[in-house]
């Protein structure tokens, strides 16, 4: 090139500082921090003035005051003399209870329905498809109301209870099931169970090593199932069957004894299970479809049986695809369990953000505490998932 491109520009002149991307970014970020700080200052100032005008106290002192109300379902001892702090614990435990049960049931239902939708049986596949397409597209809150108001509230009174067999009864006040009574000596059975599980872990490891070394295969699944039944069973019989059942009985107008499952919990569990089950089913279906057919054919060509193809080739690869979205469905279920407040199941939102907030009026502290709980759960699960994902991630060269 005969002409110098930079001829017109004096070599010493630096770009103006507002044309320098780095300095511009710095300036922009400083402005942003100022804006955020200013916004929070403004909001907090407003809040303090407003709280002062309305005569609402601030701080977390309310957590040690007496609550003065009762809660329908408590997993830890609670009555109206306990503190507001205790209501937080009670609500949190109830949320965890319904989430835990819901996750187990929804995952089971979702896996069954996801596999069923891929079934070669036309009827099975269609039933699963109709279930998924129907319940996925109906709001969860509506489903909760439907089960609670239209189904469970129309059940008969305790005197006309529906007998479900095995000493269980269903009526408008809930589901009554026998509860186990552990007598002395039952601890031996528990110890035997734990010992068996530890034994099985060693058995599986031994089998792996032997298979790697010699290629010989030991049916470890059946063996561990047999061990799991036989060993604790024998100990149970030897200890003199230290377990009896407390059956619910009709006394006067209500049932006594056994365990009561309140209708709010049943409605919430049904709705959460059925709703989340549809999403899990779709996840499972996508995961199974993601494993290419060549994998199955290759496994068959190696002489693996159908069940071992499924267990050793298809499922491990499908799970890698299924697990991340499955976890996000589980998280959704935990968050959705907060809809309990609509039917009065005493979960965290209902007890703490509902009743406790109404009683104390300390909205800011209570709402932040509630949000913090859900955030923490989310964060913990995400951390665990990231760790798990790293572990199972495809190792590529």
């Amino acid at each position: 090139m005969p002409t110098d491109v930079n001829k017109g520009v004096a070599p010493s002149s630096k770009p103006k500082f507002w044309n320098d991307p780095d300095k511009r970014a710095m300036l922009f970020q400083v402005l942003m921090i100022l804006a955020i700080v200013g916004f929070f200052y403004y909001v907090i100032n407003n809040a303090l003035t407003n709280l002062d005008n309305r005569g609402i106290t601030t701080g977390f002192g309310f957590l040690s005051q007496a609550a003065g109300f009762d809660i329908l379902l408590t997993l830890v001892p609670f009555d109206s003399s306990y503190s507001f702090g205790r209501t937080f614990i009670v609500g949190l435990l109830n949320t965890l209870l319904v989430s835990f049960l819901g996750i187990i049931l929804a995952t089971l239902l979702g896996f069954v329905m996801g596999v069923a939708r891929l079934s070669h049986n036309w009827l099975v596949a269609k039933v699963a498809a109709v279930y998924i397409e129907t319940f996925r597209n109906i709001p969860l809150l509506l489903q909760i109301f439907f089960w609670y108001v239209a189904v469970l509230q129309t059940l008969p009174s305790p005197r006309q209870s529906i007998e479900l067999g095995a000493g269980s009864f269903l009526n408008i006040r809930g589901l009554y099931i026998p509860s186990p009574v552990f007598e002395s000596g039952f601890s031996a059975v528990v110890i035997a169970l734990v010992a068996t599980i530890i034994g099985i872990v060693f058995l599986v490891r031994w089998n792996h090593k032997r298979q790697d070394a010699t290629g010989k295969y030991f049916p470890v699944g059946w063996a561990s199932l047999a061990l799991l039944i036989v060993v604790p069973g024998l100990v149970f019989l030897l200890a003199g069957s230290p377990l009896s059942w407390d059956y619910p009985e009709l006394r006067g107008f209500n049932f006594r004894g056994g365990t009561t499952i309140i209708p709010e919990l049943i409605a919430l569990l049904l709705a959460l299970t059925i709703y989340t089950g549809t999403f899990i089913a779709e996840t499972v279906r996508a995961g199974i479809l993601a494993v290419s057919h060549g994998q199955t054919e290759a496994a068959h060509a190696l002489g693996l049986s159908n069940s071992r193809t499924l267990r050793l080739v298809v499922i491990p690869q499908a799970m890698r695809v299924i697990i991340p979205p499955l976890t996000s469905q589980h998280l959704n279920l935990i968050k959705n369990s907060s809809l309990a407040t609509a039917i009065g199941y005493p979960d965290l939102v209902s007890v703490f953000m509902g009743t406790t907030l109404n009683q104390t009026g300390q909205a800011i502290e209570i709402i932040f505490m509630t949000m913090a709980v859900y955030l923490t759960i989310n964060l913990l699960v995400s951390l665990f998932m990231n760790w798990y994902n790293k572990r199972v991630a495809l190792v590529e060269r």
Partner: protein
Amino acid sequence: MIINDKKLPDLPPPTSTSGPIGWLRNNLFDTPLNSILTLVIGYLLVTNLVPLIQWAFIDADWIGDSRDACTSGGACWVFVSVRLNQFLYGFYPESEYWRINTLFVLLGLLLAGMIYEKTPKRGWIALFTLVVFPVIAYFMLHGGSFGLPVVETHKWGGLTLTLVLALVGIVASLPIGVMLALGRRSHMPIVRSFCTIFIEVWRGVPLITILFMASVMLPLFAPEEIDLDKLVRALIGITLFQSAYMAEVIRAGLQAIPKGQYEAADAMGLSYWKKMGLIILPQALKIVIPGIVNTFIALFKDTSLVLIIGLFDLLAIVQSALADPKWLGYSTEGYVFVAFVFWVFCFAMSRYSQYLERKLHTGHGARQ
């Protein structure tokens, strides 16, 4: 020696492998286990569906104006038909229904124009729907100018309110979501961490707590002289929530754009905003339309939660109608009606998004 030089007539395919019987054998009775499954499920379906159809259609009462018309023992759809106006328009004055109807028609036309692929200038229609239509809708619904009488927001309800919540949620969250997504991919550490925290916080808490926060805490945070409307507070909550989800959807689109596009835009000497506005976002937004439709479906279902903070959307208005002493005991009919309305909307949208996904996946060697 026999020589047959005539073509033998074609035989029909064996009935056991083709035709209806073959289909049955292949799809329903191919193994003993499948045969048993088919029989058990078929039996359960027949025993459950027949009474259901009997209840919902054959024995149902459709016409009438009070519960006395419900005599056949089946579903009492009279409950729904009598209150249909309330379910659709809420407490909107009857003389002003035409305003809502006009908006419904206009929205329907705009959506049809956007969905039909041969419409000229679809981009402009989309822009009109996102920018101008909400303004028109506000003036039409609220009134107060152009000679329209004011209708207070507490009179809005039913399906109208559900649609208002969902549409405002999606329209307002789109630009915020774009900004958050860009911010989360920014190189500036403070912008990036602010956007990441913002997105993860709103995604990590249930919508109910956000609605509670919006309805209880916003009045505390605002200066005293501002009195925020209940509907506006709910809309703020929904928008915050939705924009976090929207941001993640758009971020997925940004990540899907090949790096060469960014580098080419840089090489052309485009500024950041020109690069994003002219090169990256038009492509990214097009990819994520199915994702946006999916979040819209989720939002549409989630709008029913405003019931908890005392707004009368479709579910809440039916719920309150169930408590009417004149109509006690028809909760199933009410819920089935609401479920049907939601289902029709959501199912149609999910089918549309699946269709878009299939259309976008052509030529990438994807399945099907």
